[in-house]
């Protein structure tokens, strides 16, 4: 998992869109584990034949974390893992972990074999391409002509979705030093005509920021409703798309949803209203509280008659006292909140 930079100030910096083999040791492994309930793929560099990353934790899933310095540029770690990746001579996927979409691994692998080039990038259409890396490609073949990172003028509305598949030949291009895949490797590959773009079907969201994380969550739930509606929760007091872990408990007279995900072991007491939120494992929401657009961290305790809204984010093990109002509060882990936060701010 990538170092969640935009979630917490003190974490090491990294550029957006880079692949996630970066060693930011403790953060990464915990993050990867912890977000399991929202079904995000962990950071996986998966050698071998394409397979849905979360489907089978077989022996080929993941790889020994390449040891290296804490530099979080994308390409460097690939070079470190050179031997492991080149073994078997098959193409390998590289995924940016703070992205959510339908992960078309099979289609991507097929596309890659068909054109025979060194690399394929999944691209998606967005409204504001200047925030990302923009891709200009030939409409028929998908061969990428140019690759422009965060352009100042409009070039194209297709951006790099952070999902790649490479043939082992790419490893020749990468030296053992801090290297940015987007800035150094891709432009060179594009010039050599070795880089192809496959357009993504369905939803896509960069979920690096809490606000976008919630949007991405809504999109994911919507897709789930279309493909696997039986996985969504239903019952009295459930509105719209709601995902609830079987071990979670929800009290009487609650109204949950739309767009809510509730993790393992969560307890929601009576009379609670939750809309557009993620509630992570082990949290407890006490009675009569009202939550909208929030992320409640692992093992948090939210008191009675609390109102939280406007992308309030609670880190792990935060306690919010009864009867408070949190508006856009970003609360770092292990804090106890005893006073309302009427205007957005960070609580350290």
């Amino acid at each position, binding site marked *: 998992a990538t170092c969640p930079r935009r979630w917490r100030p003190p974490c090491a910096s990294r550029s957006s869109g880079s692949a996630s083999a970066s060693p930011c040791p403790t953060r990464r492994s915990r993050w990867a584990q912890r977000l399991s309930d929202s079904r995000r793929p962990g950071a996986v560099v998966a050698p071998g034949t394409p397979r849905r990353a979360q489907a089978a934790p077989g022996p080929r899933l993941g790889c020994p974390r390449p040891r290296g310095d804490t530099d979080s540029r994308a390409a460097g770690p690939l070079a470190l893992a050179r031997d492991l990746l080149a073994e078997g001579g098959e193409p390998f996927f590289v995924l940016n972990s703070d992205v959510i979409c339908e992960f078309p691994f099979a289609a991507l692998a097929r596309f890659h074999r068909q054109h025979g080039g060194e690399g394929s990038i999944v691209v998606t259409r967005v409204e504001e391409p200047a925030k990302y890396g923009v891709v200009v490609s030939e409409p028929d073949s998908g061969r990428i002509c140019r690759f422009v990172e965060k352009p100042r003028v409009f070039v194209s509305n297709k951006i790099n979705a952070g999902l790649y598949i490479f043939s082992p030949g790419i490893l020749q291009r990468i030296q053992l030093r801090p290297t940015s895949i987007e800035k150094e490797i891709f432009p060179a590959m594009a010039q050599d005509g070795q880089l192809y773009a496959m357009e993504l079907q369905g939803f896509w969201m960069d979920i690096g920021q809490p606000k976008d994380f919630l949007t991405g969550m809504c999109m994911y739930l919507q897709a789930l409703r279309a493909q696997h509606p039986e996985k969504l929760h239903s019952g009295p007091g459930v509105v719209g798309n709601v995902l609830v872990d079987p071990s979670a408990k929800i009290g009487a007279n609650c109204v949950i949803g739309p767009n809510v995900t509730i993790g393992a072991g969560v307890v929601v007491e009576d009379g609670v209203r939750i809309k557009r939120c993620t509630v992570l494992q082990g949290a407890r929401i006490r009675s009569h509280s009202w939550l909208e657009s929030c992320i409640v961290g692992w093992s948090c305790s939210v008191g009675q*008659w609390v109102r939280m809204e406007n992308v309030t984010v609670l880190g792990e093990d935060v306690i919010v006292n009864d009867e408070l109002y949190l508006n856009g509060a970003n609360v770092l882990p292990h804090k106890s909140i005893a006073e309302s936060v009427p205007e957005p701010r960070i609580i350290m």
Partner: protein
Amino acid sequence: MPLKAVILIGGPQKGTRFRPLSFEVPKPLFPVAGVPMVQHHIEACAKVPGLKEILLMGFYQPHEALSRFLAAAQQEFKIPIRYLQEYAALGTAGGIYHFRDQILAGGADAFFVLNADVCSEFPLQEMLDFRQQHGDTDSFVILGTTANRTQALNYGCIVANADTQEVQHYVEKPSTFVSEIINCGIYLFTPAIFQHIGQVFQRNQQELALEESSNGWQRAEVIRLEQDVFTALAGSGKLYVYKTDGFWSQIKSAGSAIYASRLYLNQYSQSHPERLAQNKPGGPIIRGNVYIHPTASVDSTAVLGPNVSIGEGVTVGAGVRIRESIILHGASLHDHTCVLNTIVGWDSTIGRWARVEGTPSDPNPNDPYAKIDSETLFRDGRLTPSITILGCSVTIPAEVVILNSIVLPHKELSRSYKNQIIL
């Protein structure tokens, strides 16, 4: 000895800081700790042996609510109570001077004057005893209390002789520090006071005659007790101060009504324990001092208090939390709402899961002499965070937050509001 009491209740032009609550009901009838503000005064007067009559004095037009209240109060306290309407705002002394014959009728040899907008323990008997000991039969007594040095400047300041308690100097709202003893707005007079007021009246007339009639509204009959009478009486050997440590507060703004409610509710544990709600099986959870009108219907899962007054016919739904608030007659609070530091107006409705919250303006609890600030409405161009007030018949929709706002009567809101006055 025949005693009387005069309660000064002011009129519509006074008490503007109490809007929008004063639009519906005259401020002296606003319920504090479950009963009209002025009823606390009447109860205290009725307890004084020998008190023959209570006169309410003000310049409100005849008002149905006022008449009904007076009739009910007469029945309950078994003492004649009348309303004397001033023909114009005559000031704190002008009214009693105008009605001096009424006050003295029946041979009253002393009478109390009380301001309606104060909240107090009303140590009236103690004031009578004090006068016996310290003054002569013609001396006047002001009730005083201690304030801290900064806040004392907002009140009438009294300098008194340490042994005799005679008032040596009196200044109303000075700009520099004079004394920590402040005027509580409760006085004990004898008929001799009218001579002194009369002198002020004469002087005013003479001054007016000298001046060209520049300001048509200037009236000779407008006389203020504090600035015009006490200032002159100080040092004359006739004015004394009785200092009390009992609770006391002015009730100028809505925030101070909630604070005064708390003071009276605290007093109820001794004076009227039947007015305090108790925890009962099947009833709501009560924390601290709470008043619930017998006709109110409160769900058993609601949690009320401390310092909550629930008025007549109010409905409180399941899982409601109310703290430091006054809920006026006929209001309806739906399930899971959270009401903190708020006055909910008559017949208002608050939708499910709504949060209605104000900011208390309580005096510093660490300073025993701190008084409630009557803060200005705006500071630096922003609305000062204060008690949230919902006027009469306001509708708050479900799931919104109303924070530090004042909502004028009959408004139907459709979204959240913070730090605003909603017209």
